[in-house]
């Protein structure tokens, strides 16, 4: 692998790792491991931990994918490995 591709791959892995950490924190963290602690906080009619487990985590998942898509498209162009427009 040449240096350019290695650098591209490294950036890619770093981005994925960051997003995966967020993914883990909202679902397994807020929704499962710390659910009891968060449930003591109540916003509107929701206990916060319960809300993350049944609503919030799903919204964050959607957002994460679109952040990933936009960052990767930028990265592809930066390293000139994007696909042709046609």
């Amino acid at each position, binding site marked *: 692998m040449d240096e350019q591709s290695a650098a591209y791959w490294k950036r890619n892995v770093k981005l994925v790792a960051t*997003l995966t950490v967020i993914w883990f924190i909202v679902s397994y963290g807020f929704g499962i491991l710390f659910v009891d602690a968060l449930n003591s906080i109540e916003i509107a009619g929701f206990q916060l931990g319960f809300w993350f*487990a049944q609503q919030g*985590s799903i919204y964050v998942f959607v957002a*994460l994918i679109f952040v990933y898509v936009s960052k990767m498209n930028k990265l592809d162009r930066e390293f000139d490995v994007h696909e042709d427009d046609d």
Partner: protein
Amino acid sequence: MDLTTLTYIVVGLSFALYIGIAIWAKASTTGEFYVAGKGVNPVVNGMATAADWMSAASFISMAGLIAFLGYGGSVYLMGWTGGYCLLAMLLAPYLRKYGKFTVPEFIGDRYYSKAARIVAVICLIFISFTYVAGQMRGVGIVFSRFLEVEILTGLIVGMGIVFIYAVLGGMKGITYTQVAQYCVLIVAYTIPAIFIAFQLTGNPLPQLAFGSTVNGTGEYMLERLNNVVTELGFLEYTTTNKSTIDVFAITAALMVGTAGLPHVIVRFFTVPKVRDARSSAGWALVFIALLYTTAPAVGAMARLNLTETIQTGEVGAEDGNLSYEERPDWMKRWEATGLLSFEDKNGDGRIQYYNDANAEFAAKAAEYGWAGNELSVDRDIMVLANPEIAQLPNWVIALVAAGGIAAALSTAAGLLLVISSGVSHDLLKGTFTPDMTEGQELMAGRIAAAVAILIAGYLGYNPPGFVAQVVAFAFGLAASSLFPVIIMGIFSKKVNREGAIAGMLTGLIFTMGYILAYKGVFFDPIIANTPDNWLFGISPEGIGTVGMVLNFIVAFAVSKVTAEPPAHIQHMVEDIRVPKGAGGAVDH
């Protein structure tokens, strides 16, 4: 117009639509048959993926499960959505770049091994048949309740429809019918939810109504639900009695299993570009989230409605319970199907619905003169009965029937296609009869799809007693066998043939062995399926997570001590990591 006639019309129209699309989108090459010619728009593919993924279980059963499990139902909500992040970031773009037709094909090429490919095909076929039996069952339930026909007739009609568009249209036909099916099912799911949310809280958005105050009480819905159910001896709605580690493991097994399911992965082979594969996963999750964020609201509202319909007054008061004679019509209709039943144990002519397994509350109930819980409700009816409970117009009920069928058929078709491509492309063309022409392969694919439909129909009509038990299998196997080898194939250049085969077999045998030991399936369970007996307190539903970890460990360890992959394989891995140069459908 009466309900049955109306239902016939709505369901009939939806079928006519699917068939029309099938005729318009007939596949004429293997590329079109397997991957729709790789020309599907990413948003359209996202919608098709959503329909492909959301099965009869998502549409019919999930909200009911959540209604009775409360917080415990979160494992399905997070587990069946979170996998899309893994798909988008770890699998879909790279597999699209690789650019072939099937999942086992990637595994076979990456690990330069026909054995690996065959192990993958076997996993794929087992996972897919497990699933498809459940879909056919869903079609049967909907037909028998709403169209008042025999389950067999319903199955034959359902099989006929799938046959037309899957066998003729292949992936191309399936894709566009799935788009139509998504529209039918999401409308059918959300309309009753919006009506009920509005009736109950004055807020039409189910996602918000769920956290609003119940009309006329000033009490938040979830708070009220907690009070109402605990008064009857049930567990508080927003908690669970499952251990944290088990909730964790089940969620992980479902997430990773989702990302490893071949019929989902293959949908990302159908888009034109790598970047489309990424965004398509995002769109898929948007369309899925519409239903998945509505479902917990539907579950909570259904539980509250059901409980308050029966417990009309104070708990323990003589006239606090619904009199059987005055029960609403929807209960009478569902009693006829056997999915709801009443037994007047204390002979007072009223329905008592409470948790008699809770010893403390059972003692109190005995003081009220209650002799045990008298109502049994199959959780599968909660979504289907919802519009009737909320007294919505007949056309909504008809639409829900069409939606349930759409959910089941769209998933069944996707599964049948991966089974047929596994047989015709991986087993025949790829392994046993490589000399086939494209025309012969296409014919083999069609025949395999037709045979698979017949087997699926048979399984739907004679569901083996173990269908419910083997669902854990499908996710456990996908998580512990396919997912790790695909990930390692992309993110490591060093994992080799020996490592991958050893890893897959370890994950597979461990997970299968564990589930069989506790669930039996073909024989009596060897060990009682109770939390005390579980390894680390992890239930068979969650054990795929441990299988996955073992797969990774074994694969890396074995690869370390055996020869590294040949140079051309390492180059192939480097190549799939960059988007540039992804072609259209590859003929080979």
